[in-house]
């Protein structure tokens, strides 16, 4: 099958590769770019384990082709650390609030949280629960994920206030 060139920014780095047109973005990220943080949990866009951030929106990478993402700016869980390599606020909050167990949904949850807190810096519990409804977790019952997101929200607000 003839291949098509795609070009995109992934976690701040320019990427240029040849792909089959039918290659799903999740396979491109995982197999070609070796970014195995985003996972595959279903093939129907329900579980959200493959969630990444594309041009400022949460996207399930199992449901778009790599060619559709050409030209875009993508963030995966691997890009969530601070620039100095230390843990980002959301990552730390998930650890502190025990917002993960097996860790399979976690990369998608963290990337979704990143976008959610940009859409709504101070979400209520209901807004958080609706905001992560596209990301399934089988281990935690979500209670501590909600707590982790609340903790991250309050710390990020604190950081913003300190910066102002």
């Amino acid at each position, binding site marked *: 099958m003839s291949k098509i060139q795609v070009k995109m920014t992934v976690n701040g780095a320019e990427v240029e590769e040849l792909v089959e047109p039918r290659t799903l973005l999740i396979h491109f990220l995982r197999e070609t770019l070796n970014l195995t943080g985003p996972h595959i949990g279903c093939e129907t866009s329900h579980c959200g384990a493959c969630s990444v951030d594309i041009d400022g929106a949460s996207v399930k990478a199992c449901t778009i082709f790599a060619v559709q993402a050409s030209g875009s700016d993508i963030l995966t869980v691997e890009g969530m650390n601070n620039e100095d390599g230390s843990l980002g606020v959301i990552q730390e909050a998930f650890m502190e609030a025990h917002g993960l167990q097996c860790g399979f949904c976690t990369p998608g949850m963290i990337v979704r949280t990143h976008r959610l807190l940009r859409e709504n810096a101070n979400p209520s519990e209901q807004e958080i629960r609706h905001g992560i409804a596209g990301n399934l977790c089988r281990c935690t019952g*979500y209670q501590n994920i909600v707590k982790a997101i609340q903790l991250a929200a309050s710390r990020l607000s604190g950081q913003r206030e300190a910066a102002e």
Partner: protein
Amino acid sequence: MTDAAEMTHEEREATLGGIGCARKRKEDIRFIQGKGNFTDDIKLPDMVFGDFVRSAYAHAMIKSINSEAALKIPGVLAVLTADDLRPLNLHWMPTLAGDTQAVLADEKVHFQNQEIAFVIGIDRYAVSDGVQAVEVDYEELPVLVDPKKALDADAPFLRTDIEGKDDAGQGPRTHPNHIFNWQAGDKDATDRVFDSADITVKEEIYHPRVHPCPLETVGCVADMNPVSGQLTFYGTFQAPHVVRTIVSMIAGLPEHKIRVIAPDIGGGFGNKVGAYPGYVCSIVGSIVLKRPVKWVESRIDNLSTTAFARDYHMTGELAATKDGKILAMRANVLADHGAFNAHAQPTKWPAGLFSICTGSYDFPTAFVNVDGVFTNKAPGGVSYRCSFRVTEAVYLIERMVDVLAQKLDIDPAELRMKNLIQPEQFPYTSALDWEYDSGNYPAALEKAMRSVKYDELRKEQAEKRANGELMGIGVSFFTEICGAGPAKACDILGIAMFESCEIRIHPTGSVTARLGTKSQGQAHETTYAQILATELGIPSDDITIEEGDTDTAPYGLGTYGSRSTPVGGAAAAIAARKIRAKAQKIAAHMLEVSEDDLEWDIDGFQVKGLPEKRAAMKEIAFAAYGTNLPEGMERGLESVDYYDPPNFTYPFGAYICVVDIDKETGQVKVRSFYALDDCGTRINPMVIEGQIHGGLTEAFAVAMGQIIDFDEDGNILGATLMDYFLPTAVETPTYVTDFTVTPSPHHPIGAKGVGESPHVGGVPAFSNAVTNAFAHLGVSHMPMPHTADSIWKKCKELGLTG
């Protein structure tokens, strides 16, 4: 000898991060950065992929399989069928339950989506093209879907491969579709009690076929090195050593030439215990192609073919006195095992530990009868987040107690209180011969009722009922049975269900410990280190826990049935105590006193009465490798323990769930859920709470929405996440957790296990709450799952809708 004396007792204890502290999890650091290493993340040089051609029909003869077109597709390397596996005698494989299961369908398919051919290609896309191109010609056969018709004289005959065999691995068979009959208790004595009792109740209670559905599907990578003859086999294995032994038995490879590696596992819940055709085909593919072969299920594959759970058609009966003292129980079960007897229980227990169904109540007589049958459905019968068949058992007794309460017009909590086993009765031998280790049941139920203000809730319910509103209060008091198991009772294929731990203390006082269990999210790297920290006096930060590599870890039976803490945790504690015994001798030598003059104190030994004269474990560790050891002592500080538990452990708890039901839509709103768990000694309260939240949510899923259903042709209805209910954060309730602590008297640290209790106790709590909302209308039982649709229909039937 140390400056530890300058720290307070509490500071030294806190430094350890041992049993009882809510320390953060060691494993999180990789997962939150996307650096976990799951099976599908494994990438080996020259690796290729495999996937299955699956049956379109539930029951059919295979007339022909044509792979020609598939093999012409660029990138497709091979197509394996039963005919290719036959010369290797690998077209069938033994199951854990004594039956055989087709690896690739041999002339006949027995369930929809059964594996027919294995296509191997250079990437997933080529394989997918190849799978589409394989042509299979079928001749349809009559389908058996309803297990209640399985033993009819004119039922379709499923397993022609075992025609005439009187035994399918678990005792005598009475019909070609019959698998086993299993009984416990005294039938005649039970019948006599029922015949003379004031009150008897009876209810048909079905626990639907459900699926554990871990977020990561099942998969493996087989890498046979053609030069060394060494097979490295990576995969989503809850029991890596068992997989190694089974692979050795099935494939005839010497066991020392097989290295099984279970990397990070994305949830298991019982789904990743057994062996699947994908394992065999990947191994054969790697041998044939001399390249590593990866196979990872899709979600549809997972839900439609990988081991299901439950599917128990139960009839429960209780006999009681007029004032509510339970006298006896009868349970009759029809177990739908699907097309092959491939459930995952200890080998001697065809119905698992189902006879725990007398629950938390004190009555002397019971009888249980279980028949297993074949149907045209995927095989399985695994324990979805519970010990073997315990959710079924607890669901039955906890529903039946509510049914009895309704009949007697006694409050369900009051009826339970009246019948609970009393604290002074422990160790308590149940009517079906289990020896419950410890408990204080009335204290737990009292605490639960007080905490939720039970009387006020019932008052509110009465008011709501008077107004025509539907409010339900679900009570469940469960006893789990964990820690399989004592060698005298439990084995898998003849291997006793022990657990093991090997500890190495390095000269600088840090520790590597390896266990035969395998975490799938339970935080073993954190909690085992806490047990060892307390036992060894070495900070848990300085202890690395390794699991999942059979070349390094001592043999173990794996993680399921809440056995890691009860059995693996016990092995860890005992292995640590062996080290401490040697350390005491070294310390005596260092301090120039007799061993008997020393006492253990948090992180080292001190001379009795002279606490400033002490040797810390870290110093002892160095000395163990040094030049000055007691005469005749060998160097090093290592130990290994293979722990055979003297008994099971019996965690218990009291759950109270409150629901409000909208009679116009059938929507159930879980208003509150209070969960009191007693899991004995608590190792990490944070991890325990997380486990309880998760187990309750899986119980919520089972009670409210999960079912793997079939149409009359055996087509599976809804094998995607579009149809199979996994709760999102929106509908998942918020839980209040609480606890009491009754240590297990026979476990080295008193721990009982907790991961599965919330599922076992949670299912009846949710279900009882829903049925209780209708109890005043004469409804004694409502079948799970309690979907809005089914409840709305009930409301309509009762004339409640507007």
